[in-house]
């Protein structure tokens, strides 16, 4: 009885998988959305302090990291085009490029934070306590939001690293690549969040 049905027992629902991923991404959007609302309120309360504190940030590093992340998003979506065409070699090359660019982002970010720490700017530092209240709020939001985003970059890199392994082992193929699509969706959301962080902290403050 069970032998005959065994071959048909594998349930597959790619749309359901993508819907599930999107529902998770929606919770992420609300998580960061709450922080964006907090930023907007604090900025309207302390416009001068936000302007002054924002000038401390290195816009060149912020812009460079934007270009790095945008390009890494492109290579993920190109990896999906490649797997749709059954080109395993290109899929792996594009994914490896994304992983490399994600690491570049983290290295730049760590240099940026290290400079801030060097200037005595880190959560609960003695120097920070001497600054006006509005600037303390600015750096609080800066470390919270870019830090939470950084954790998402690390999570995304782990997911995409695993996807690369799955492609290599032939577990992601031309006719079954929903894992790669969902991993890519996560990475693009991380990119979208950074698209908002750049002007909020580096340009318009």
């Amino acid at each position, binding site marked *: 009885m069970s032998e005959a049905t065994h071959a048909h027992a594998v349930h597959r629902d*790619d*749309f359901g998988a*993508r*819907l599930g991923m*999107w*529902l998770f991404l*929606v919770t992420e*959007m*609300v998580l960061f*959305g*709450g922080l964006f*609302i907090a930023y*907007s*309120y604090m900025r*309207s309360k302390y416009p001068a302090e936000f*302007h002054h504190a924002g000038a401390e940030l290195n*816009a060149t590093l912020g*812009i460079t990291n*934007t*270009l790095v992340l*945008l*390009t890494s*998003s*492109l290579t*993920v*979506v*190109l990896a999906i*085009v490649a797997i*749709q*065409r*059954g080109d395993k070699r290109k899929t792996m090359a594009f994914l490896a490029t994304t992983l490399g660019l994600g690491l570049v982002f983290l290295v730049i970010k760590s240099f940026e934070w290290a400079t801030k720490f060097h200037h005595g700017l880190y959560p609960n530092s003695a120097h920070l306590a001497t600054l006006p209240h509005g600037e303390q709020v600015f750096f609080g939001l800066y470390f919270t939001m870019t830090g939470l985003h950084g954790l998402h970059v690390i999570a995304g890199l782990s997911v995409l690293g695993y996807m690369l392994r799955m492609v290599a082992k032939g577990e992601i193929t*031309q*006719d079954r*690549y929903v894992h790669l*699509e969902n991993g*890519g*969706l996560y990475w*693009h*959301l991380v*990119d*979208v969040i950074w*698209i*908002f962080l*750049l*002007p*909020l902290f580096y*340009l*318009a403050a």
Partner: protein
Amino acid sequence: MSDHSLASPEHAGDHGVEHPGYGTFVKVWLALVVLTGLLVLMSHFGQSFAVWGLLILTPIKAGLVFYFFMHLKYEGALLKGVVLVTLGTLLIFFALLFSDVAFR
């Protein structure tokens, strides 16, 4: 939904539409880079330009990523609806907060 036995490589998968090629996404990436350049340029003309750049260009950039890179263009009404309802909810929270702040 779609007949898999008839699916050619271009029609593989369950999207039911032809998959876009490399070129489409490279063009979208170029647009994103140009918009980023414009955003940076606007921020050099002073605070109010920077804020307008943020309010206009950033949602366009996010929209391009959602629509093309995240394949929303090729998804059905349900997935599009899920995203729109979320953005609408955030907008309502935003409006509620600032309607309170503005009249203090």
